[in-house]
């Protein structure tokens, strides 16, 4: 690991000042010379691999005093960015009113990593593309802009089939983000000029022609909270993977339904493990609204969700698998007892 200077931020202003001072000239943010340290489960790992090379680390864990509250309200849910995955997953009200959130967290990583990792860090985690994580591969547009993509014609079984570009097919690896994007969550961002709020759907950027730019965050900005409107007791996170536990998704679906008298009033569908960014399947949702559920509808919805999917040599199976995951998640959501 390369040397870095370590600083501990005891209030948000200090953190923002330290990060923006050192990062001002840097572009993109993921290669900024100063990086915030929360749980460290991505950052320290990637620093050991020499993929991330910050010269300054700003430890923001002391901010947890103000930024880790779990606050279920009557009309929304507020989650502090420094809340630990394990605490949110185990929270009674979240399990009851937002099972898609609780399960997206519970099915991720290991017990140890969930104890360390924060919600803010979780949505900022980097891809598990093996060509990105191994610096001995020269061609990675995410690491070295313009260097090419070794995954494109490499072993791309784990790679994305949605939201790809001819520059990058790396999969967004997280689970929690699918729950957030499905539920129309807002993200609160704290920076030099205070706190701003934006739809979570605007946080991540598809690779396009600049895969090295992964989010819309600016240097010196930190995620401070997430706000989820409404309650979604009829919601499911289904994750299919090579191992039963402690593995990233091959395909996952976050589904939330509002069903009254057998008719679907509102429907949310988001996909994980198959896309370059947290992926909302709005065209699939549109087919569900106002309908009564049956297996034929589930199939049409699943087909719609993957209508634009493009497979490559080793990952085309994800299209068939992903459709089955969507259909099964819908069936589970419709039949769940609430």
């Amino acid at each position: 690991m390369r040397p870095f200077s370590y600083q501990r931020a005891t209030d948000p202003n200090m953190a923002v000042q330290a990060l923006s001072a050192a990062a001002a000239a840097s572009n993109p943010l993921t290669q900024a010379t100063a990086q915030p340290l929360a749980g460290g489960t991505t950052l320290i790992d990637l620093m050991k691999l020499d993929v991330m090379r910050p010269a300054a680390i700003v430890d923001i864990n002391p901010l947890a005093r103000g930024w880790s509250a779990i606050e279920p309200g009557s009309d929304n849910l507020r989650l502090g960015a420094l809340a630990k995955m394990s605490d949110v997953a185990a929270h009674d009200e979240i399990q009851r009113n937002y099972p898609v959130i609780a399960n997206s967290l519970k099915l991720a990583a290991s017990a140890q990593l969930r104890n360390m990792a924060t919600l803010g860090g979780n949505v900022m985690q980097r891809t598990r593309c093996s060509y990105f994580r191994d610096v001995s591969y020269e061609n990675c547009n995410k690491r070295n802009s313009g260097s090419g993509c070794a995954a494109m014609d490499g072993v791309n079984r784990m790679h994305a089939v949605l939201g790809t570009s001819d520059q990058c097919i790396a999969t967004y690896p997280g689970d929690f983000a699918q729950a957030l994007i499905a539920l129309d969550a807002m993200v609160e961002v704290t920076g030099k000029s205070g706190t701003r709020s934006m739809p979570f759907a605007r946080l991540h950027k598809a690779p396009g022609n600049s895969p090295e730019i992964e989010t819309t965050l600016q240097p010196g900005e930190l995620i401070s909270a997430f706000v989820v409107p409404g309650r979604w007791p009829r919601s499911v996170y289904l994750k299919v993977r090579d191992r039963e536990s402690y593995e990233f998704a091959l395909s996952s679906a976050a589904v939330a339904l509002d069903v009254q008298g057998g008719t679907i009033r509102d429907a949310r569908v988001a996909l994980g493990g198959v896309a370059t960014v947290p992926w909302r399947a709005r065209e699939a949702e549109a087919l569900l609204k106002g309908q009564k559920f049956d297996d034929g509808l589930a199939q049409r919805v699943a087909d719609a969700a993957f209508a634009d999917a493009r497979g490559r040599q080793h990952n085309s199976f994800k299209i068939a698998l992903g459709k089955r995951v969507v259909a099964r998640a819908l069936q589970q959501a419709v039949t769940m007892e609430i």
Partner: protein
Amino acid sequence: MSDNSSSRSPGFNRRAFMAGAAGAALIPMTARAAAQDARAPVAQDPALPVDVTLRVNGQDKRLSIDARTTVLDALREHLRLTGSKKGCDHGQCGACTVLIGDRRVVSCLTLALAAEGQEITTIEGLATGDRLHPMQQAFVDNDAFQCGYCTPGQIMSAVACVKEGHAGTDADIRKYMSGNICRCAAYPNIVAAVKQAAPEIMKG
């Protein structure tokens, strides 16, 4: 555990952080710091060791370490507590599992500086004198290992697994112990050991 007088404590109040410091981080700060804006926050010079006090198994340990040192390396290389094992060193195998507070974490991805002020418990801190902790005894009784390299991490993880309330069923034990890999595949016996120790640990 040398006390290096030139070392720095981390934090914002000790030294001025330089604008653009990251790019120039290898230049010693001492000469330049005074000329900088006094309001700017502070970073430690990466070329110098940092003083840190870690609380390990109930004792305060003063160390002077490279800022890059993980809790795992602080334990093994500086405190000679070699019970916690380095397997993958990337948070994937669980061999380095320790408790920080009452939570199990992987010590290989935890910076020692970030663990300052917290209670760290390692496998060396579990037994009471010569009497093994119930989980240690259960691993012996159930032959829950072959080579033993993953065992300290398995045991620390298992203690936390029980206290979290995740040892009620075999399926739960397997799911919540999945962060600890055993290349010898002693898993059936590990599940048996966790089940044996759970009631005794829950009694307190």
